[in-house]
C-alpha cells in the first residue's frame, strides 16, 4: 500500500501532495438495560488527498473508493488551482520520515470472538444492574478497532502505522419517584483486549453513585474554593487552556496572538502544563500525526508562564515556530487540523496530597469525575460527575449538578496548590472541533485547588 501511495504522489502535478489511506477493522457490542442492542463487526476504508500549489490554496478530496486514487489526486489539484491566494500557504520544514510504526496491540482484538466481547460487556453491565432496584436503565458499550494508516507526501515521507483502540463504557441510570441521576464509567486506551479486563468493581461503584445521588441535594450556586479531582483537573486543563494553545486559533489573528504571547504569565509558579502525544499507550498517543510529523512532549506552561503551543506544519510556518506533531484528523473523511493528544497538568511537590489541599477550607466544593466540558475560548464550562461539600477542612455531604463556569485567565491564575498525586485519565470520550468528533484524546493531572471558582445552580 505504501508503494501505491508513493507512486500516486509521484504522478501528482501539484507542488505539494499528501495522501492518507486508512483501513479500519472494528467491532462493537452494546447493551441497553438487560437487552443486547448490537454485536457487529465493521470494516471502513477510504482515502484522503490534499495538495498545494504556489499562489493557490488547499485542494482536498476524500473518498471511499480506493480505485479512484489517481483521479482524486487530479481532482484535488484542480480544486487547489481554483483557490487563488495573494499570501501563499507555507509549510514548516520537517525531516522526511520513512517508517513502519506498529503500536503494541496488547491482545489483538481481531483475534477475540464477538461472543467473548459480548460476555465481557455483559459482566460489566450486569454489575451495574445488580447494584439496586433503583437502577432502571443502563447503557453499556464495548468498541474496539485496529486501524491501518498509510501516509505519503511529496517530500519523501512514507509511513505505515497500526493504531489499536479499545473503549468500554457504561452509564447507570438511577430513578426514584421523579428524580433521575446517572453514573458514568469509561475506560479508553490505545491498547487491546488485555487492557479492559477486571473492571467489574468500577462499574459497580458508578451505579451505586447514581443511586446515592438520588438523595443528594443540588449544589448551591455561587463562588467557592474548589478542589478538582485528578479526572476533572485533566478535563479542566484540556478545556480551559488546551484549546487556546492550539495555534490555528492564533495564527491568522493578530489580536489573538497578542493575547497568547509567549512569555505571558498565565498562572502562579506552581502551574506546569503540556501536551504529550508520545506517552505510551494512552488514548491520544500516536507515533506520527496525520501530516507525518513525529509526536512529542510539548511544554505549554512552565512555572506559570506561557512557553509553547500546538502546531500543524502550516501554523508553525506562519508563526516561525516548529511543528509539534499535533495535526490530526478523525478519519480519512477529514483534513488534519491542530488538535491535542494527551494534555496534562504536571504534578506539584511530591508528598503534597488531597488532605493538604482542603485543610484550611471553611466552605468549599470537591468536584469529582467529568461528564464533559466545553470551551468558548475565554470562557469554559465543565460538568463534574458528582461532588462533595468541604466544611471546616473536611469532606462533607455528597452534592449533585456540579457545573463549573469559568473565565480562563481568572481561573488559571487562581490555581494556588497542586498535589503530587498525578494520574493519567483513562476515559473513552473524545474531543470535538471543526466538525470532527470524537477524536481520541486524554488528559492527566493531580488534585488541584482553585482559590475561587463559580459553581452554577440555584442561588
Amino acid at each position: 500500500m505504501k508503494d501505491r501511495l508513493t507512486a500516486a504522489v509521484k504522478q501528482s502535478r501539484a507542488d505539494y501532495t499528501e495522501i492518507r489511506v486508512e483501513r479500519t477493522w472494528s467491532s462493537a457490542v452494546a447493551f441497553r438495560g438487560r437487552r443486547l442492542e448490537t454485536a457487529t463487526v465493521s470494516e471502513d476504508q477510504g482515502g484522503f488527498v490534499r495538495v498545494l500549489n504556489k499562489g493557490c490554496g488547499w485542494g482536498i478530496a476524500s473518498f471511499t473508493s480506493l480505485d479512484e486514487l489517481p483521479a482524486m489526486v487530479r481532482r484535488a489539484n484542480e480544486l487547489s488551482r481554483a483557490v487563488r491566494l495573494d499570501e501563499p500557504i507555507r509549510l514548516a520544514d520537517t525531516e522526511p520520515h520513512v517508517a513502519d510504526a506498529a503500536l503494541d496491540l496488547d491482545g489483538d482484538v481481531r483475534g477475540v470472538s464477538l461472543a467473548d466481547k459480548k460476555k465481557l460487556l455483559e459482566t460489566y453491565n450486569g454489575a451495574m444492574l445488580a447494584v439496586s432496584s433503583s437502577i432502571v436503565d443502563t447503557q453499556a458499550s464495548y468498541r474496539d478497532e485496529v486501524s491501518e494508516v498509510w501516509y505519503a507526501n511529496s517530500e519523501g515521507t512514507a509511513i505505515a502505522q497500526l493504531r489499536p483502540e479499545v473503549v468500554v463504557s457504561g452509564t447507570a441510570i438511577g430513578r426514584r419517584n421523579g428524580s433521575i441521576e446517572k453514573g458514568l464509567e469509561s475506560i479508553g486506551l490505545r491498547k487491546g483486549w488485555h487492557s479492559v479486563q477486571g473492571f467489574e468493581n468500577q462499574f459497580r461503584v458508578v451505579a451505586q453513585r447514581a443511586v446515592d445521588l438520588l438523595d443528594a441535594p443540588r449544589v448551591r450556586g455561587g463562588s467557592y474554593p474548589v478542589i478538582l479531582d485528578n479526572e476533572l483537573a485533566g478535563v479542566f486543563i484540556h478545556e480551559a487552556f488546551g484549546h487556546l494553545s492550539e495555534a490555528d486559533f492564533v495564527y491568522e489573528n493578530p489580536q489573538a496572538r497578542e493575547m497568547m504571547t509567549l512569555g505571558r504569565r498565565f498562572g502562579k509558579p506552581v502551574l506546569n502544563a503540556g501536551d504529550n502525544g508520545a506517552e505510551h499507550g494512552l488514548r491520544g498517543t500516536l507515533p506520527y500525526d496525520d501530516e507525518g510529523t513525529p509526536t512529542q512532549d510539548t511544554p505549554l506552561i512552565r512555572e506559570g508562564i506561557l512557553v509553547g503551543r500546538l502546531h500543524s506544519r502550516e501554523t508553525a510556518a506562519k508563526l516561525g515556530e516548529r511543528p509539534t506533531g499535533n495535526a490530526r484528523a478523525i478519519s480519512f473523511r477529514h483534513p488534519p487540523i491542530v488538535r491535542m493528544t494527551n494534555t496534562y497538568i504536571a504534578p506539584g511537590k511530591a508528598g503534597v496530597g488531597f488532605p493538604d489541599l482542603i485543610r484550611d477550607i471553611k466552605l468549599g466544593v470537591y468536584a469529582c469525575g467529568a461528564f464533559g466540558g466545553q470551551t468558548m475560548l475565554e470562557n469554559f464550562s465543565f460538568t463534574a460527575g458528582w461532588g462533595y461539600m468541604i466544611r471546616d477542612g473536611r469532606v462533607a455531604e455528597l452534592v449533585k449538578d456540579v457545573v463549573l463556569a469559568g473565565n480562563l485567565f481568572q481561573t488559571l491564575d487562581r490555581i494556588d496548590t497542586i498535589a503530587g498525586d498525578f494520574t493519567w485519565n483513562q476515559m473513552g470520550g473524545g474531543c470535538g472541533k471543526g466538525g470532527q468528533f470524537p477524536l481520541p484524546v486524554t488528559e492527566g493531572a493531580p488534585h488541584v485547588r482553585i482559590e475561587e471558582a463559580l459553581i452554577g445552580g440555584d442561588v
Partner: protein
Amino acid sequence: MIDRVLEAAKRAVDNADALWRREEQTSVAFESGRLKAAGISEEAGLNLRVVSNGRMGVVGTTSATPDPEALLARARASAELGEMVELAFPDSSPESLPPIPTYFDRTANASLDDLIRMGKRLVERLERPDCQVNVSVEREIADTAVGNSAGARGEYRATGIAVTADMTRIAGDDVLMIYDQYVGADMPTEADLETLVRSMETRLTAALTVVGSPEGALPVVFTPAGLAAVVLPLEQALSGKTVLQGSSPLAGKVGETMFDERLSIIDDPLTPGRPASRPIDDECVPSRSTGLVERGRVGHFVYDLETAARAKTQSTGNGRRGFFGKPHIGYTNILFRMTGGGHVGVRAQHAAALQEQGLGGGLIADIDDGLIVDDLIGVGQGNVISGAFSHPVGLAWRVQRGEVTGRVKDAAVAGNAYDLLKKIGGFGTDGRWLGARWSPSMLLEGVSVARR
C-alpha cells in the same frame, strides 16, 4: 446494489432490510476572510440488517464492491449473538410514498465558482476591522435507496446546502464569538443571506458593550439557538426508546398536560425545502408527521421498527441509519408551534414590527431586569434526561427596563426544562430554522441566574 443484496438475503435469512447511500459533497472554506481551501468528498456504503432464526444482526460496509455472500455471512454471525425480535417490515411501494421535493436543481447544479462567489460576498458583507471572519459553504447531493425482503422499495435524491459564518472579536482578553448558519435543500436567496448578515450584525453590535450580570430568579428570553438546553431533555424524553427503557419522565403521561397549553411540538419529515425531509424513512416506513406535544399535552413518542416492536406499537417513520451500526430513532424536522392566540405581551405586541430584526423577538418590552440567552456552554453534558440544566453563558445580553443594555459574560443560568415550560411568558415573532429545528424565541420566567 440493494436488490442484489436483498435477493441473496432471501435465500439465506428469514428477513432483511437495507439502506444504500451515495453522498457527494463540495465545500469551500474562507479563513480570516481569505479563501483557503476547496474540497470534495465522495462516499458510498451499505447497511444491512437481517433477522436470522428470529434473531437480529447488522453489518455495514463502505467497500465499493461488497460481496453479498460475505456481507450476509457477517450479518448472520452478528445475528447469532443478537436478541429475538419480530420486526414488522413494511411493504410500501414507491407509488404509495408522499410526494415531497427533496432535490433542487439549483443546488445540484451550483458550480465550484458559484459556491466561492457566494462565500466571498458573505465575507465582504461581514468584514469589520476588529473581527476575524470565517465562512464555509458546503453543498451535498445524496442518493438513497432503501428496501426490504417484504418487497418495499424507496429511492430518492436529495440536495442540501449549508452556509455557516462565524466572527471572532478579541479585545485584550475579551473574546467574542458570533455564529450563524443557513441550512436548506434549496440555495439561499439574496434575502436569506441578508437575514444571516443582519442576524450576525445585530448580535455583534449589541455585544460590544460588556455589562455586569443580574442575579436571582429572573425572566430570561431564550433565542431559537439558546433554546437548545431547554429542548434537549424533551427530545430525549419523547423518544420511544427512552420511554421503553423506563427512563423518560414523560413515560405514562400521554394525554396529560405537562406544558404550557399554547405549546405544540411536531416532528415533520414533510416540510418542503428542508434537508431532513424525506418521503420514506431509513427502514422503508413512509413519512408522516407526528404530534409530540399537542397544546401542552404529551402526544406521541417517536419510534423506529425495533423499538415499536418491543413497545407493541407502530413505527412513526423515525428510523435512521448510517453505514455502520443498527438503525435507531432519529427526529426529522422539529417544529415548535404556538397555538391558541398570538399573545406575546401587551407592549411587545405594538413593538413587534419595530423589533422584528432586534434581539429577543419582541419579548423584552416588559422585562425590568433579565437576560436574553443565545448560547450556553456545555449543553448536553449534564443530567439531561432529568430536565435540569446549568450552564455558563456563551453569548447573552442583559435586558433592563425593556432595553438591551449590553453583553453579559460571567454568568451561569440554571433551571429545569419541565418546570420552566409549564408556563411560557411569551413566544417571539422571530421564528426561524436552526438546523432541523424551527422555533421562535421563548420568554421563560424564574430562571436561576448566578454571577461571579
